[in-house]
């Protein structure tokens, strides 16, 4: 369940939202959030996490270390 978006870095561009295969990304007050219950790190869908790959600001979509890694 592990990716999260660093709120202070998010430009609210929405690029990640449609790329997420789990529909885990949603908008709240101009920036985007990841629902940790839905995130699968894109495992089983793509080689790389889509939010990370499409985000225009480096180190904005990052692993949420407070949560255990996704297990298939």
């Amino acid at each position: 369940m592990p990716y999260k978006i660093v709120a202070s870095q998010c430009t609210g561009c929405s690029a990640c939202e449609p790329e997420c295969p789990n529909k885990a990304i949603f908008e709240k007050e101009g920036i985007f959030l990841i629902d940790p219950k839905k995130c699968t790190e894109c495992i089983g869908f793509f080689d790389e996490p889509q939010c990370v790959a499409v985000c225009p600001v480096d180190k904005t979509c990052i692993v949420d270390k407070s949560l255990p890694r996704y297990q298939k």
Partner: protein
Amino acid sequence: MEALMEPGRGVSERFSKLKGLAIAVAPHKGCGSSGGSGKSSCGSSAGSGDLPPDVWEKVKNHPCYSEEGHHHYARMHVAVAPACNIQCNYCNRKYDCANESRPGVVSERLTPGQAARKVLAVASEIPQMTVLGIAGPGDPLANPDKTFGTFDRVFKAAPDIKLCLSTNGLALPDHVARIKDFKVDHVTITINMIDPEVGARIYPWVFFRHKRYVGKDAAKLLSERQLEGLEMLTQAGILCKVNSVMIPGINDDHLVEVNKAVKSRGAFLHNIMPLISAPEHGTVFGLAGQRGPTAQELKALQDKCEGEMNMMRHCRQCRADAVGLLGEDRGAEFTTERIESMEIQYDAGKRQSYRDSVEVERSARRAAREQELLTLAGENSNRKILLAVATKGGGKVNEHFGHAKEFQIYEMSTAGAKFVGHRRVDLYCQGGYGEEDALAGVIRAINDCVAVLVAKIGACPKEELRKAGIEPIDQYAYDHIETSAISYYRSYLERLKSGAVADVERGDAVIRQGAFIEVGAPAGQAA
């Protein structure tokens, strides 16, 4: 905000060199005939003469595609497309400032419904508004549902508004059919390179079909998709303009190759723009100290490509939410709040009658221009000069020197007046604040010009301009630009022959980098 006066790296050194090249001009002795009734002209390098009739019919009222059109018609951009699928080293998406005017910058994002309402509101208040463009702030085709959702609504409510979009081209081949369905007849693709080696220095990555590509792979993929998309548009009969950002030391020479490649694939207009790059923009180029081109470097490249195809030189590199004539932005008048509360009455008849009146004006002007040109028939000088013109639109010399936010630049030769660009400046006249600096900035911006044509100018700036070798001319106040410019040029040649002015080459000029601050009504004191 203090950074706004910063002219960019290296400028002061360059300028100190330029200053030494100022020419001596004899006292103003009058310049040919004064404006009479029916004198009119509109400077246009992209007038009907340069284009096939069917193309001209499509572009003549499009401010971004026709230099002549941009004097009369306005465009608006709606910022419905925030997402982007590539990263460019000249773009920083985190930056957003109301005073900043450059592509990719917006103050507010709109839903397709809000955008369509805004378009109708603007169109009913501004009859000059003929074009709706979607240009970002990201890439319109990376947000296809929002982009085409907006077009769909506008197309149904106001079919006389032309639709256009501007894209980096990566997703273009997937959307050409839809573009055609919505009768979008103008598409702009930004193509900065056709060589992946060059591209790798401009684009750190692209995102395509669920994968991020970097380096030369990214540039190669982008270039292939751009050229494929361009070919598809040409085949579908959709007019395509190509934008290129000139980045000295990276793609400046290479853009000649780009020009050939896009022309051969059917692009009908090429718009080479200067890199906008200052450290405070926070872009990769800005932070690395990558400079933009000087005015003469830009013009030399545009001239070099011109033999191949029409060059666009009136681009203002506007924001993705700009509203109004090019060079002005009335976006602040149309806030979402105000639009929500507006009663919109879309009057297609009123809009048509505005267009009709422009047509009458245009043909009168064309005739006057031809007539004025005849007066140059006996001249066979090779001497070309640049003139700066203060105008607020309508193709006239109708702006006070001190109120000018930009100057239009005309290259004069015995073939007539050719529009070759514009230079943005800070207001010289801001009610006493920072006038000295601002005047120096204006002189830097038009330093390659022999004269500046204005509606009015004060004694003090007049003197300073003369010292810098630029002749201030106010005798053509409110006349049409092109006839005035030809008249001035004719008298200039006469004075050259008689030895009244020295034949000295002008130096280079500086392209302004910083943000522009919109000042309300400039306080009193017309300069």
